[in-house]
């Protein structure tokens, strides 16, 4: 996750009706961007910039903090709240608390934050009842439990709590970039370009500028590229990584369901969805010690009250693989539903997950 400097300017967070807030935001954004390329206006009042490059350039985090502070003072005339942490969620909290979270302490910092920091009132209320008071306590809940109890947005918040997503939904105003561009009066082609793609052509440069624009709009982790590991063949593994992530710094955005033979599912769920697989007597189908099923699957039941008939299945194919945890045993099953959809499901420790859709 990228180490960000978050800049909170309270006086720019409330929009004045005369357009002055937006103008000042644009002016500050341009000044900060000149200082540190890739600065983003996240939403009114909040700016963020990747710290690594500028820190190297100016000679340390403190040198950057000093320059940014002076820049805000000069343009807006107020003292900003500055904070440094990995990922936008933590970085904003760090700014409100005016702290620099050292490398390696990001998890600890995130975990001690109050549950309310995740911005969900329903979650804070339920959490209070369950005795969950911190982001860390919430993070320790099993994702499947969270999925059963809450909607997708809370599941995303859970991923933020676990440090798997960099920012909260709603933390960013995706329309701000467009409004600023409109104010500027041009479609801005701006920003430094970095060569991530080896040999370059004009097409590569155009693509990179487009990627940069989406990144400014939606955040550092919004644009991804696929990275292949260990070779180029279809049997090799692949992951999605944020565009611009340094080589070797591979954070698994999408775990891979293993080395099944082609054809592979066109949709591979980054977060496997829990489901139940039942036999004809509506009993749970379980994988035996010898890698056989207790009975042929007759239906699948998704977390929502939705039952679908299974008309065909193949497998199980056992897989010994590191998945969301280390060295667990699991097996894959291909199933076709009555409607004709084909799914790839995985079982582990008596539970079933949807991992792929042959869409």
């Amino acid at each position, binding site marked *: 996750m990228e180490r960000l400097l978050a800049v909170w300017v309270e006086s720019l967070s409330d929009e004045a009706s005369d357009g002055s807030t937006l103008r000042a935001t644009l002016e500050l954004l341009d000044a900060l961007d000149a200082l540190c390329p890739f600065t983003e206006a996240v939403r009114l009042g909040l700016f963020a910039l990747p710290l690594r490059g500028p820190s190297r350039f100016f000679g340390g985090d403190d040198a950057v903090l000093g320059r940014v502070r002076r820049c805000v003072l000069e343009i807006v005339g107020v003292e900003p709240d500055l904070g440094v942490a990995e990922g936008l969620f933590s970085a904003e909290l760090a700014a409100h608390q005016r702290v620099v979270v050292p490398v390696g302490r990001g998890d600890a910092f995130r975990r001690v934050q109050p549950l309310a920091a995740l911005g969900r009132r329903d979650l804070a209320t339920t959490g209070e009842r369950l005795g969950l008071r911190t982001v860390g306590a919430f993070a320790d809940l099993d994702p499947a439990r969270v999925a059963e109890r809450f909607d997708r947005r809370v599941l995303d918040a859970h991923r933020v709590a676990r440090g798997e997503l960099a920012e909260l939904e709603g933390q*960013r105003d*995706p*329309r701000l970039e*467009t409004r600023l561009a409109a104010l500027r009066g041009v*479609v801005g*082609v701006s920003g430094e*370009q970095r060569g991530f*793609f080896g040999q370059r052509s*004009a*097409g*590569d*440069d*155009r*693509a*990179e*500028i*487009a*990627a940069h*624009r*989406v990144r400014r*709009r*939606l955040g550092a982790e*919004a*644009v*991804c*590229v*696929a990275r*292949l590991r260990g070779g180029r063949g*279809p049997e090799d*593994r*692949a*992951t*999605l990584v944020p*565009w611009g992530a340094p080589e070797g710094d591979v954070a698994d*955005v*999408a775990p*891979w369901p293993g080395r099944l033979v*082609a*054809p*592979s*599912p*066109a*949709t*591979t*769920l*980054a977060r496997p969805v829990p489901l139940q697989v039942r036999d004809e007597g509506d009993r749970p189908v379980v994988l035996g010690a010898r890698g056989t099923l207790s009975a042929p699957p007759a239906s699948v039941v998704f977390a929502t009250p939705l039952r679908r008939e299974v008309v*065909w299945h*193949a*497998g199980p194919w056992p897989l010994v693989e590191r998945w969301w945890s280390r060295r667990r045993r699991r097996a894959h099953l*291909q199933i*076709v*539903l009555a409607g*004709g*959809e*084909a*799914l790839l499901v995985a079982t582990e420790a008596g539970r079933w997950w949807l991992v*792929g*859709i*042959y*869409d």
Partner: protein
Amino acid sequence: MFASDLFRPPIPKELRATLRPVALASTRLLPLGEPWRHWVPGGGLRRGSTVVVEAPAGRGGLSLALALVAESSAQGHWAGVVGVDDPGVVAMLELGLDLRRVLFVPRPRGAWAESTADLLDGVDLVVVRPPGRAAHGAARRLVDRVRESGAVLIALSEPRTPWPLPADLLFSVVDARWATTSRLDARRLTVRVGGRGAAGPVREYLVVLPNRDGRAEAP
């Protein structure tokens, strides 16, 4: 060597990034692979056009949209994929895409149309899956943007949430059947192809997608 240096001065990066390759008549089409090229006029995807791929959920729409990109991608064109939360990267490899030139915006949140527009300026083909039914205005703006940029937009939709504008080319999956052995083997899709003007009358085709190698092929 001297001459080539003289006539090919180093172009500043900012300038180079704004340049487009010269578009000759034959390059107004982006290449399509088998069997798609026999299905459409000119055998390729016309730059500036909007292609709609319509299929009920889980019936091969995503595979079809990605298959339409594969040949262009393999020949060096850039592609973008917006709003497909969990793209099956290995399936894309099997289809023949060159993943070194594919940008993904898996979760554009509320800004799917804006992100698509951003990418249309920089890549040659964009596959977009709007969340639910696309608003008429947003679709209109994108179609205009595609025409200006000379890229190709491939919009994925379902029959219950159709793309709100007429498409230059429309591929609708009307039937999908899996052939199975001891595993999922291949899927036979029945695809209706139509569209405005040059696309001609609506015709129905069969395609195996994916086949045993994960590629598209004529049955």
